[in-house]
């Protein structure tokens, strides 16, 4: 795990453009949703001549705003600087994921909307690349504990037909079996009983047949 604050020495060529990176304290300014923890205190990178500050701020739902502020030595905003953001996350090991880039506006602020999709500690690294090197780099740490937005959708169990089909089908099959058994029972009982009745000489309902016994 990296140190929370880190300064990068400016290349000589960049020294003529002094930047001051100021620190905002965003997490406290916007109340995040209850299940999203606010980010840790913003970390500052400092240098003799320039500073890049990066901060994360919960905005809406699970979305975070990653803000990088570029200031010169006199705390004046520096616009037009492209800041590249990446996140170091835990995905089958420690992985570094590019999450986008943004340019600083006239107030020296570059804002990136970030939707964390994994729980755990996210190291957000902001880099101000310059020519071949890195002008400045700094990072913020989000601790995401309740990623719900992408996960909350109820998983649809794949189902061919509704639950009613089972009972209906069972009913149909059972009725076929029932009919078959009914046929059997009716014949067995009927044939057996008819003889019993016929054996009784008093009952002449089936008159023709009493004499066939034996």
């Amino acid at each position, binding site marked *: 795990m990296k140190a929370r604050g880190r300064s990068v020495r400016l290349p000589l060529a960049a020294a003529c453009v002094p930047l001051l990176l100021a620190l905002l304290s965003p997490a406290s300014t916007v109340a995040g949703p209850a*299940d999203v923890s606010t980010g840790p205190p913003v970390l500052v990178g400092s240098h003799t001549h320039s500073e890049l500050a990066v901060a994360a701020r919960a905005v809406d739902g699970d979305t975070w705003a990653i803000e990088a502020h570029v200031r010169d030595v006199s705390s004046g905003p520096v616009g037009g600087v492209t800041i590249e953001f990446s996140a170091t*996350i*835990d*995905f*089958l*090991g420690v*992985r*570094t*994921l*590019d*999450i*986008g880039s943004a340019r600083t506006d006239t107030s020296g602020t570059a804002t990136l*909307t*970030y*939707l964390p*999709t*994994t*729980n*755990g500690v996210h190291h957000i690294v902001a880099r101000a690349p310059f020519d071949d090197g890195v002008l400045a780099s700094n990072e913020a740490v989000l601790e995401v*504990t*309740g*990623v*719900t937005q*992408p*996960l*909350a*959708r*109820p*998983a*649809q*169990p*794949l*189902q*061919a*037909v*509704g*639950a009613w*089909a*089972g009972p*209906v*089908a*069972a009913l*149909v*099959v059972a*009725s*076929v079996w029932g*009919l078959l058994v009914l046929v059997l029972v009716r014949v067995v009982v009927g044939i057996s009983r008819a003889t019993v009745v016929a054996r009784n000489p008093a009952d002449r309902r089936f008159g023709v047949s009493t004499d066939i016994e034996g």
Partner: protein
Amino acid sequence: MNVEQAEPLQVPPREEPKRALSRRAVLQSVAALGAGASLGGLGAAPQLVALVKGLDRVAPATPRSGPAAGMNATRRWVMVIDLRRCDGCGKCTKACQATHYLEPDQTWLKVYKLKSSAGTEYFMPRLCMHCEDAPCLRVCPVGATFKNAGGVVLVDQDKCIGCRLCMSACPYEARYFNWIEPTKRPPLAVLPTPEFPAPQRKGTVGKCTFCVHSTSHGELPSCVESCPMEAIYIGDLDADVATNGPQTVRLSTFLRDNHATRYKEELNTGPRVYYIAGHGEDAER
């Protein structure tokens, strides 16, 4: 070409509800027809039975509200295969067979050498597509094939009766039968599980597991790890992240930017394996 479209920084929307609903709607009509026919002539009963429960073997979706520490409790695993990088070396197949103790002809991950319509040859690694609406799962008579919470289609070899209907239902030739008593066994005699079915069992069917025994411990599948070309990515639709080891990408953006396709999309099985075609590969056949 059927490309997954998604907004940047947004997780691709789940697709199965729409497809499952439409399939369900259609089948409900069919079932109603069957019910009518059956009640008219009771003999049609078994056809109706046809439409009974659908995929009742799908593992119940875990409710995923509330904070979960560390890794996500569940994943929706996918793989992405960059055909531009695959050189057909076959190391993935060997690694897979070594990991799962398979016979030489049991190529759970098979690298096909195909010819595009333009006449160029290319290689296409094929593993189990772990379809959202898996045909194999639907036809299994005893529910031996099921989906785990991460959407990975697994086979319970203690349940499988070896009817091979799943093999005929699979459009991807991804299932392999154990025609003989397996000759390879893990050195440690552990009981095979659906997640790590080693050794294989005679008379049952086996297939790619997306190496859930590895991913559940935060490790890469053996094919991803073994690919020298870094062509195979393992990803999670929910986390919207995929990695081939050295490189980690935002899954939705990666798929969109590279015009990823899924194999035999027209079959509506919703494969969980995406292919990135480069120069002339017929990713969709």
